């Protein structure tokens, strides 16, 4: 019983953590149509930045704000500036995959060079815990669930109720059409990279707190699981990403509990490949194969 | 081998199924249908392509002409209906299997191998041969180079006939849109197809050159090659195609010689008179 409750509660926590990152990833993909393989490295870089700037901050919200700010800046720099430059030169899907991988390697191993061989322990905010029917949840994990709910709500409000959200959806649907509707696609995309980076940073900080430690490769492994959630929900669809995160979160907790802990990620990754190969449009959304790539 | 006398292309008219001594058509399309999502692109298309004809396929934009070509060549899987080639059912087969039977097509959007030279494009066009096997690649060059020289001669011949030997060694990606179209046509000719499907081969080609291509196509028809050709330029259709199949909104509206079609009020309303569908 506690096992099942544990799977559900930690599944919800994993899902919340995944959803924050996955929504950022998928939002950016939906608007720019660029599959950003450097997302995981940005995520790691945000933990490093937060750790370097405030150390063991006592306030979780400050830590998240710092993470969000560094993620936004990095994402804009990498996505809008570097990837954008390659796109203006006519790079195609494979070229962009190569570019983002190259950036990812540089960031990840650059951080490894800074970090050294040790794993850095990390914490922020209060260390209190909460007991739910025998399952112990830390305050960081609880905050993650709350932040995820807030972030999801904020993204939905942004997309559905603001003028900028309309611009984002217009750019996602059709760039040239958006342009004729007096929306500036370039500015919309830049802001999208910022928002996506901010969510990435928040996700990174919460991941670091949840794990209690981090290293230069923390983000790259987590990113693949996060991408599994995004792809499962239909890449480019924030609402789908949330559902995807929930499924992935629970499936990976179950795999860890039932098979072996090392299968936690493998299970999610197998789902990712299966969805990419068999049903790239995901479980919810329509397919955007023919759209041009823009940044 | 299977060339029919040039005079055999029939005077058009009602498809004479009952005609006792009539040879069965090279290609028979029956009840073909295909939809994309909710759009019925082709519904119940039925027509024949007889040996030694250049059969025209005309109709307004979006009528479903390219889709019919895609369905015959296997690029798109038909929802229902049958396509018989030399009496064999080919609907639902994969594109390379259909091409292997001798049905070669060109694409409406010129589809050349950009990273290959024009000459190499033509060489790839040649019907599959032994030298292309992996075993040949790992064996001695002499085993395939003689056959390849023969193909090269053939390719040079075609290039000269189209007056394009000057670009033989240019990368196809460096060519203009019209030139690419020609490369695609020449590449299809290299295959010596039994049935050539042409999707607007003259679009974007200079009128003088288009006229000379038309002459080439007539020569080949007289030598027995069969073609199904989508074309919007009605003067070319009139010069080349007999019979002509008219499509509109996914179905076959009428079939006959150009002269007959011009006197068919339905066709004139749908297409000919209206200046393209209006």
């Amino acid at each position, binding site marked *: 019983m506690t096992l099942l409750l544990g799977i559900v509660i930690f599944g919800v926590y994993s899902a919340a953590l995944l959803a924050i990152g996955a929504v950022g990833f998928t939002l950016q993909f939906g608007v720019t149509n660029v599959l950003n393989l450097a997302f995981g490295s940005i995520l790691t870089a945000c933990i490093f930045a937060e750790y370097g700037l405030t150390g063991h901050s006592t306030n979780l919200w400050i830590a998240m704000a710092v993470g969000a700010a560094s993620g936004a800046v990095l994402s804009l720099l990498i996505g809008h500036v570097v990837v954008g430059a390659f796109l203006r030169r006519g790079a195609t899907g494979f070229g962009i995959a190569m570019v983002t991988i190259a950036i990812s390697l540089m960031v990840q191993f650059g951080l490894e060079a800074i970090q050294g061989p040790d794993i850095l322990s990390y914490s922020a905010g209060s260390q209190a815990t909460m007991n739910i029917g025998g399952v112990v949840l830390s305050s960081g994990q609880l905050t993650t669930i709350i932040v995820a709910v807030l972030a999801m709500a904020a993204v939905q409000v942004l997309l559905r109720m603001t003028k900028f959200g309309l611009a984002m959806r217009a750019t996602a649907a059709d760039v040239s059409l958006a342009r004729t509707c007096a929306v500036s696609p370039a500015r919309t995309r830049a802001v999208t990279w910022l928002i996506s980076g901010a969510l990435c940073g928040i996700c990174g900080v919460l991941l670091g707190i949840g794990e209690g430690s981090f290293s230069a490769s923390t983000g790259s*492994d987590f990113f693949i699981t996060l991408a599994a959630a995004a792809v499962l929900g239909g890449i480019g669809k924030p609402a789908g990403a949330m559902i995807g995160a929930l499924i992935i979160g629970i499936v990976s907790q179950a795999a860890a509990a039932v098979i072996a802990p090392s299968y936690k990620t493998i299970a999610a990754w*197998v789902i990712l490949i299966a969805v990419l190969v068999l049903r790239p449009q995901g479980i919810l959304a329509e397919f955007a194969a023919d759209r041009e790539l823009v940044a | 081998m299977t060339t029919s006398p040039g005079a055999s292309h029939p005077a058009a008219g009602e498809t004479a199924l009952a005609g006792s001594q009539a040879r069965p058509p090279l290609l028979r399309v029956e009840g073909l249908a295909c939809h994309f999502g909710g759009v019925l692109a082709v519904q119940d298309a039925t027509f024949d392509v007889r040996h030694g004809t250049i059969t025209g396929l005309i109709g307004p934009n979006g009528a479903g002409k390219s889709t019919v070509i895609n369905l015959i060549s296997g690029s798109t899987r038909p929802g229902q209906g049958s396509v018989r080639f030399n009496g064999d059912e080919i609907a639902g087969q994969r594109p390379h299997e259909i091409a292997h039977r001798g049905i070669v097509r060109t694409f409406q959007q010129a589809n050349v191998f950009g990273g290959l*030279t024009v000459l190499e494009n033509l060489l790839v066009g040649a*019907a599959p041969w032994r030298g292309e096997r992996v075993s040949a690649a790992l064996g001695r*060059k002499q085993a395939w180079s003689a056959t390849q020289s023969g193909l090269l001669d053939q390719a*040079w011949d075609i290039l000269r006939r189209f007056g394009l030997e000057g670009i033989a060694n240019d990368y196809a990606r460096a060519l203009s849109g019209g030139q690419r179209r020609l490369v695609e046509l020449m590449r299809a000719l290299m295959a010596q197809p039994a049935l050539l499907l042409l999707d607007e081969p003259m679009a974007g080609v200079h009128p003088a050159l288009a006229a000379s291509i038309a002459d080439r196509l007539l*020569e080949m028809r007289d030598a027995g090659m069969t073609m199904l050709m989508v074309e919007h330029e009605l003067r070319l259709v009139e010069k080349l195609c007999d019979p002509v199949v008219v499509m509109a909104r996914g179905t076959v509206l009428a079939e006959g010689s150009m002269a007959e079609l011009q006197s068919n009020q339905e066709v004139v309303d749908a297409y000919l008179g209206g200046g393209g569908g209006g």
Partner: protein
Amino acid sequence: MTSGLVYYLSGLAILLGINLIAIWGLDLQFGLAGINNFAYIVFQAAGGYAAALFALKPAKAYGGFETYLGGFNLPFPLPLIGAAAVGGLLAVPVGLIAIRRLRADYQAMAMLVLSLIATGLAEAQTGLVNGPTGLALIPRPLVGIVHVTPLGYNWIFLGLTAGCCALAWWVARGISRSPFGRLLRAVRDSESAVAALGRNPDALRMKVLIAGGALAGLSGGLLVEYVTAWGPSSWLYPETFLFFTALIVGGKGNLAGGALGALLVPIGIVEASRHLPAFGYPGMIDSLDWVVIGACLLVFLWFRPNGLLPERKRVFRAGRQQAGGTQVSGAFAQRLTGSR
């Protein structure tokens, strides 16, 4: 030259040769046929494990300090042949993803994840290939049969590597200059046009995936037999990009380009940096290597995407002159429509 230096240089030459084989294998798949194989390192890994398991005695023979499947104690050259065969066979399941018509970036990601899953499984299934620790004590070829100094052995191994390089060159050159290679380049540009001309693009790609995979397997086998150890940390997913970078720097679709890339990237960057005066903590230079490799990749993608030695154009001179004029037109048409 001191014998220490000679020993070092002969070892370097062996590594160069091993990388060369792997890079030519990738060039067949990616340079020639345009397959985005971001899981290429898995082929090398599979070859390495195959060679190891074929060469090792059963685990009991070593007192059971490592656990693995098999241990066939086969004599040279069977482990190497087995490595190439396993690399080639691996193409069949991997091809299910690598050959599918998918958006290029989705495919790249799927292949990348495949590489991660392979690592994850090798680590998780400890009974398969000894888990995260990896295999050790892998017997070197001919040891116990020839009795030579370590330097002498290096020369023998270098000869073996050179022989394998010659074999790889023969395969890669044979394919790239042949009509088969031309079809592969055609598939790279337009699969639909290749199919419309009567060839099965999936079969073409599968064949080259197998050929490239066999070369990768062979290089993995050689590497493992040389270094005598092989574990998941030897073939993490970034290693694939070492080869991609070498190809993009040197020039894809060009055997000399691949060779230049092998010299510049795995040997030039990775080996040369070992001779820098030590700084930072141990391992810092290794991390910085990857930063340099990533930067190289970006710089070349931006400034010289076709590499230092780009793919060469295959030029054919006009052959037998055919008289022009109208009389031949009938003959021309006849030839075109003649017997199939």
